[in-house]
């Protein structure tokens, strides 16, 4: 199947970059690459489409990690996706404005992203659209705050 027009079993780093820039143009920016690593940043609106393409066409079968970052001016969701045939890993970061903390969930694509997204929701308050079960996971369900935001100060912290 490898090399087929609509399916790449083990795409190389160059192929990943080429295919994604051909398909998504300016909505997906390349931040850098090295051996077995591709670093991208993507527009929030196209995350689901991009991940679907990466899963279905580029054969990245696993979402290793989905995590949030609080940059105080905005938030970010970072995805790490991995291919089981050549060990290539794609890192995608997407900016999320503070006044609309929403992004499409990738759980319908990768079931393994389920708890990562729930965790990001409860710790940062980022809502994942279309998530099957977006509830608090690690913290008690009656918590009203998001402890990993930079605005949440630890006791004794300066």
């Amino acid at each position, binding site marked *: 199947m490898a090399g087929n027009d609509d399916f790449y079993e083990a795409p190389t780093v160059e192929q990943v970059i080429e295919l994604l820039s051909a398909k998504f143009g300016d909505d997906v920016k390349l931040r850098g690459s090295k051996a*077995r690593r591709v670093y991208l940043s993507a527009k929030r609106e196209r995350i689901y489409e991009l991940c679907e393409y990466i899963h279905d066409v580029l054969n990245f*079968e*696993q*979402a*290793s*990690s989905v*995590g949030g*970052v*609080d940059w105080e001016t905005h938030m970010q969701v*970072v995805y*790490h996706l*991995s291919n*089981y045939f*050549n*060990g290539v*890993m794609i*890192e995608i*970061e997407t900016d999320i404005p503070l006044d609309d903390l929403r992004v499409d969930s990738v759980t319908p694509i*990768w*079931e*393994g*992203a*389920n*708890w*990562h997204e729930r*965790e990001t929701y409860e710790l940062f308050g980022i809502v994942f659209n279309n998530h099957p079960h977006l509830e608090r*996971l*690690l*913290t*008690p369900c009656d918590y009203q705050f998001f*402890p*990993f935001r930079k605005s*949440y100060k*630890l006791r004794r*912290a300066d």
Partner: protein
Amino acid sequence: MTSKMWVTMGPQHPFSHGLWTLKVRVDGEVITDATPIIGYLHRGWEKECEHRTYPQIIPMADRLCYSASMTWSHLYVMAVEEGLDLEVPERAQYLRVVADEICRIQSHLMWLAAMGTDLGNLTVFLWSLREREIFLDLFVKLCGQRLTTNYPRIGGVRNDMPYLFERDCMRAVERFEKKLWDIIALMDDSAIFLSRMQGVGHVTRKEAANLGLTGPTMRGCGVDFDVRRDDPYEVYDLFDFEVPVSQDGDAYGRYAVRIEEMFQSCEIIRQAMAGMPDGPVRVKAPRNVPAGKHFARLEDPRGEGLMYLISDGTDRPYRLKVRSPIFVNVSASKRLVLGARMADVPAVMGTIDMCLGETDR
């Protein structure tokens, strides 16, 4: 007559190996739904790290998982070295590999001991722990501690191996390779054990990949991937070893993969000891990490560990995200136990090797 009801297994249940709950909905004996509940051990580890300097986090990384402390602190220092763009001395890389593989063997033996008690075979428990003690003794010689080893450092390892460590290590490995067969015989020659493991908790290759299972759990379902071989770090690309994969996809397949991994770890230790170069074991690392975003991944005994580090130029991380293998594996527990019987739950969940410290963080 059938009756449908929810049964709560845990947080204090002999099979749970730590504080977590598995709520299962049973129709008679068959499980029709399940919900894992975790979070009893959530300490805000990632947030704590934002308030500590880089070297202070190494012993904290040890505490992510008590039986895989070596690989967790190793993963953390790899993420920081990635940020510093630091070249680690070759001897230190070899020592890290040896330490990681000792850690893998003792962690798998801990799992085997737990698996034995889960399935009612107390001899397996005692014999596994006896063999594990020898590898813990190696840790004591290497770094002075049995469990929370605090051995890797940013830029190398804490100390060179002590006098006669190589001899002790080879003796332990050679003895273990014979002794492990005794334990295997206890398990594999037991009809009770086989009938409880074979055919339960079946997962196909495609599902295993999609569910995000990693490590021996995933390889027991037919996914042929090991970070050590396919995305090598340190000096793993210099060694010749095999990655065991089972196409069975049931609890027995995952058991068999872990057993074979222990033999392969022995092989890696032997090769690493034979090829150990001379030289320094540590280079001086700067205090502050330049601003940037970095990640490192590593094959933990339980699966794929990943740390994503954001540094802002100060001596403390801006954000440190941990991808814990068991966190994802346990999220798949509904799929694993669905359709099994109540009595199969310990056999199925035992094969994912729970560790709550890294799950809840």
